[in-house]
């Protein structure tokens, strides 16, 4: 039985097709989910893709957080279903309070698109088991509001509990506190990151294929579960 991974399309989602492709290349069964739909169609995990949901007007991810589908996603995530938020998806997860903190305007005020080196610090989440802790990878980064912020206590807590999943290497691209590129919840099923692993799954179109393990990790986790 193949594992069904849902990818939500909000109005303004842009990297949904890429996330579906990454799921397929990883060997999963990609399932399209629609923002107005509260039913998750028996998926085993959900990806919230990159883009500008609802134009990212007001704040990135703020309007998407209140869409019907997110009601169910939040409920299921709390019950342990793996959820990955990429870029805009990460912003939605923060706005939903499934992950702490928030993402703010890049400190240099420009949109930045570049190939970003990262260290995978936590290789023990639903989405990172196929990496080894400390592994260095390069995947695309592209955003205008990717600066991760949280209060000091939250940051300390994230560090102490090993919940920083990926960290920027070779220079902080956006002013993120403590070079944080992605984090997880305490249970390790919900992960959000600004860089785009779904754009690094084919040598032809990506800088590397080092984003693929995000998608293979969750498939293994679900098969073993």
């Amino acid at each position, binding site marked *: 039985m193949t594992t069904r991974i849902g990818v939500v399309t909000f*109005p*303004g989602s*842009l*990297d949904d*097709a*890429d996330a579906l*492709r990454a799921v397929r290349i990883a060997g999963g069964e990609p399932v399209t989910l629609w923002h107005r739909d509260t039913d998750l169609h028996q998926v085993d995990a959900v990806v919230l893709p*990159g*883009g*500008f949901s*609802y*134009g*990212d*007007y007001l704040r990135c991810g703020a309007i998407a957080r209140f869409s019907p589908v997110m009601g169910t996603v939040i409920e299921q995530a709390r019950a342990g279903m793996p959820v990955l938020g990429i870029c805009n998806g990460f912003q939605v997860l923060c706005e939903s309070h499934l992950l702490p903190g928030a993402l703010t305007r890049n400190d*240099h005020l*420009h*949109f*930045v*698109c*570049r190939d970003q080196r990262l260290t995978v610090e936590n290789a023990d989440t639903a989405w990172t088991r196929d990496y080894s802790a400390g592994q260095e990878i390069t995947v*695309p980064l*592209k955003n*205008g509001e990717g600066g991760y912020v949280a209060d000091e206590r939250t940051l300390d807590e994230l560090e102490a509990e090993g919940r920083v999943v990926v960290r920027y290497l070779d220079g902080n691209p956006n002013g993120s506190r403590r070079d944080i590129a992605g984090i997880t919840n305490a249970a390790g099923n919900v992960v959000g990151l600004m860089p*785009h692993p*779904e*754009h690094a799954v*084919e040598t*032809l*179109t*990506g800088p590397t294929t080092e984003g693929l393990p995000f998608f293979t990790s969750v498939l293994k986790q679900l098969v073993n579960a």
Partner: protein
Amino acid sequence: MTLDTVKHAAGTPDAPQPWAELGLKENEYEQIREILGRRPTGAELAMYSVMWSEHCSYKSSKVHLKQFGEKAPASEAMLVGIGEQAGVVDVGQGYAVTFKVESHNHPSYVEPYQGAATGIGGIVRDIIAMGARPVAVMDPLRFGAADHPDTRRVLPGVVAGIGGYGNCLGLPNIGGEVVFDACYQGNPLVNALCVGVMKHEDIHLAKASGVGNKVILYGARTGGDGIGGASILASETFDSTKPSKRPAVQVGDPFQEKLLIECTLEAFAEELVVGIQDLGAAGLSCATSELASNGTGGMRVELDDVPLRDTTLSPEEILMSESQERMCAVVEPSKVDRFLAICEKWDVTATVIGEVTDGDRLEIFWHGEQIVDVPPRTVAHDGPVYERPMARPDWLDALRADAAEALARPQDGDALRAQVLRLVGSPNQADKSWITAQYDRYVLGNTVLSQPEDSGMIRVDEETNLGVAVSTDGNGRYAKLDPYAGAQLALAESYRNVAATGAKPLAVTDCLNFPSPEDPAGMWQFAEACRGLADACQVLGTPVTGGNVSLYNQTGDVAIHPTPVVGVLGVIDDVTRRTPMAFAEEGQLLYLLGDTREELGGSAWSQVVHDHLGGRPPAVDLERERLLAEILISASRDGMIDAAHDLSDGGLVQAVVESCLRGGAGARLVTPDGLDPFVFLFSESQGRAVVSVPRSEELRFTDMCGARGLPATRIGVVDGDAVELQGQFSLPLGELRSVWEATIPDLFA
């Protein structure tokens, strides 16, 4: 104020009308009265004035543009010819591609962010209206002097606007140009190109046929944006002494446009659409008259049904409004409900505003009264056409006599080295990644090549790896010296860039940015460029599928360089065979393809080192370009070369430096016999490229070049971490990189 109805107009033939303020000439106003057999109503006058503006009617350029059709080479690739919103090209496997470049020059000077953003928005809607899914954008840009304070205002705003709109729309930016020259100071050129892909059976055309079919306006509500913008902004010289002419600026909503793309494509997929038209310049005036003019019947529109953002708008203003992110579709009555449901799914406002009638008139009603009753062709297609006087500029001979070949040259290796560094660090030749890093090049996951590669390349089919490549080029300095040759050189460079990546050039789009057509010298430049481009397209077998003309690019009497920008589209059967530009493999052999002559007129070297523009541009040899392209394509297909980079402004040394920095490997070069090192490095002779050949392929490659008669000269080897010219100088990559990368951020960050 009483409503100026058709009846009222007929009864008040002598009422004064502001035709001059609306940009019409007296003879044009008389022509309108003749067509209608009475004076036009206010709404009719608004429609004619905006549709007969230079921007919409091409009244000065039409007679010259005709050549693109008349001289079009026979090409099996053309599915829809020039004349539709954008031409359609067959790229094989049942796929068709449409692409077009358009200008948004004046609005981008007034309000750089929104001007550039809505430029992207407009060209993308053109592509959707053909039934294609937009897959990539490009942005050829030209600004005033890099160190001028106003460039600091305009460039960051334009770049942010293009990024802000394109990124939010989810279209990868795969290339463009950034050129600085004082001639663009008060008149930057912001051109935008979009590429779309569809299946052959999905081609849609703008026409309203079928009596009783409904006209549906969908997308954003109509507001007071850019009223008169099309006619006043684009047709009259931009004159800073008349601030009152500054029109309201349109604000773009890329999110709304993303929804328009999705709902339009869904409606196409369900075959709900008979005809479709985007709303661009001249808004509803343009959409209704063009749809009706292209169709078989007439059209009746109830203006009261147009959803408004600003309820105080007059009917004339509603007709002229250039509110962005709107489209107009013609739909059979039985399919209207389904069409509206799709719009509802995507949160897009959609309203039936009229229907196709069995008459031959476009009739528009407001509050139950008829305010427009016109033959639609007279508005949309049969506008005035001018054969404007032309005169070869009197300064041209003196300019051409001032040859760049006579300029002082570097006398030794140290001087060469210093000038290479100056060239590489000059704003036009420096690294543009501070700009291109603000653009998403990854979205959609099909970008095979993007900046700084010679052309952008997009995978069209994931199963077969079919792809397309596009490049845009133009050199205003060459065109100033010789507009006929300049247009051909723009085409040649773009064609060469496409071939350098391994794709076969198929078709051309162009954006002709020129000064005032009312100046005989400007008109002559325009005519020469059109003739040059049409002639060259004939030789290269690449038809012009569409494009855009932007005239009146001048500030007062100061005209821009004539700047034809040419986009070439190519096809590649297997994108995994693409040729990148990076020299990366130590030990590979560097070959220079083509002939190098002493050609420095209009060159980057003459600009950077001597601030000079004079003489003649490099010679055009289109047969050579064609041969070079064939070699580059064969070599890519058969795996004979690992890298290729075309030679253009800056000559050989610029190309080698770029390829070395891209791959992180150095090059040891030897000046070929019979060439002077300076000419070897800086000449801008055309029809050339530099390639990196694995040693195992050398024989096969040189045999092929020999057999086909293309000069191929071994000029060195990929090696070390410096660019070295034997016996002259060595430049460490680190030093080159820091000079090359610093310039643009130092100016604009």
